[in-house]
């Protein structure tokens, strides 16, 4: 996308479009990424509740994949995940590995 010049920006930096934060992808800050291990998941949805962003998707009442466009890698989901019999369903991995 071509960046706008100073003559084209909105006066006062007012954003006149609703829901435009969706276009602002914040997942590029991440140093660690959460990995979902589906076989250990008990569908408690704690990760969805605790995620400070909207990086965990729920589909038909069930946990779906991470939305890495908005995941900042904070690791709260991995910390809160009770797992199945002590085996975590979310683990943090170094980004780019």
């Amino acid at each position, binding site marked *: 996308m071509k*960046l*706008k*010049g*100073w*003559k084209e*920006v909105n*006066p*006062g*930096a*007012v*954003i*006149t479009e*609703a829901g*435009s934060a969706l276009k602002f992808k914040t997942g590029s800050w991440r140093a660690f990424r959460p990995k979902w291990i589906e076989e250990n998941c008990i569908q408690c949805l704690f990760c969805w509740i605790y995620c400070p962003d909207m990086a965990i998707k729920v589909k038909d009442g069930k946990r779906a994949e991470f939305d890495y466009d908005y995941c900042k890698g904070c690791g709260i989901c991995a910390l809160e995940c009770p797992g199945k019999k002590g085996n975590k369903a979310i683990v943090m991995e170094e980004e780019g590995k």
Partner: protein
Amino acid sequence: MGKVVAVTGNEAVAEALRQVNPDVCAAYPITPQTDMMQRFAVFANNGKVKTEMILVESEHSAMSACVGASAAGGRVVTATSSQGLALMWEILFIASGSRLPIVMPVVNRALSAPLNIHGDHSDAMGARDCGWIQLWSENAQEAYDNAIQAFRIAEHMDIRLPVMVCLDGFIISHSIERIEYLDDELVKNFVGEYKQLNPLLDVEHPVSYGPLILPDYYMEFRRAQAEVMTKVADVVLDVAKDFEKISGRKYGLFETYRLDDAEIGLVILNSAAGTSKDVIDEFRSKGIKAGILKPRLYRPFPYKEIGEVLKHLKAVCVLDRADAFGASYGPLFMDIASSIYPYKDKPILINKIYGLGGRDYLPEHAELVLNELVEIAKTGKVKTFKEYIGVRE
């Protein structure tokens, strides 16, 4: 002609605000502004205005409330002085950066420390580069007139910028002067209906104010904001022309007094300009060609226009009622120096700091300065470029 009254500067400006009848006023008392907002609060309490008063717990909150109310779509005012303006500092930038046409009388007062409540320009000078328009006023009449014009300037669709109306603490705010009030109806028609632009309360068209702008765009927004400032002078002159029609009083970007054929001149802001004019008359009667330039639109500073009227002089003294603690010249001096900088033949400039913390500026001070300028014009020699007037050794 409207009603002639004897009122203080604070009373006159409060009256202007009553006539404008803004939607929201956030108020926090600070000397010497207190009396202005108190009078306005009385108008609100007695139903003379429909203004929603927000009585906040600090000036930081006052300006924050103004930003919120203005973004919501209201015509908004507040007023302050000194430390109050200093406490607003970070929100001043948010108001101008968000292009919110807030109007704020600033009753000029010295900054601490040491604590001092008297007239001095340190407060507004500290806020001169925060993106607000600044109009300065010599007396209560000008403060009243500027306050009314400020709304039209701020709310102009080409600009949408906040405006400070500066008037000297105590000397103007608390002295009683003869002034002419305009009729309520005239003022109401002059300022007109407030036109909202991107109001937050328009739920049909949702907007966000104050977004995070990263390095990829911040500079573009600031460049665009600087561009808006270049349009201000024309708007100020247009509004002044319309104001002259209803008041008979003429305003420009600055006032010149006997400057056209002058050889020496003073540049001075606000109330001290009046004192100086009398002394200029005395010098003129002695055959000395002296004149005065009194800036009115101080931000954005009309460098080109001021340079044009000053360039032919031989010697000019810029008098600052605020010091600069970078061991440098006073703020007004630096702007005047910049405005004559482009010219090959230009006057010799000197700088005097006067009247800090409310110390009197007397006719004999102007005399001393003018005599020194006569000497400089004759010899081309300057003893000291920056000096203090009326300070004890």
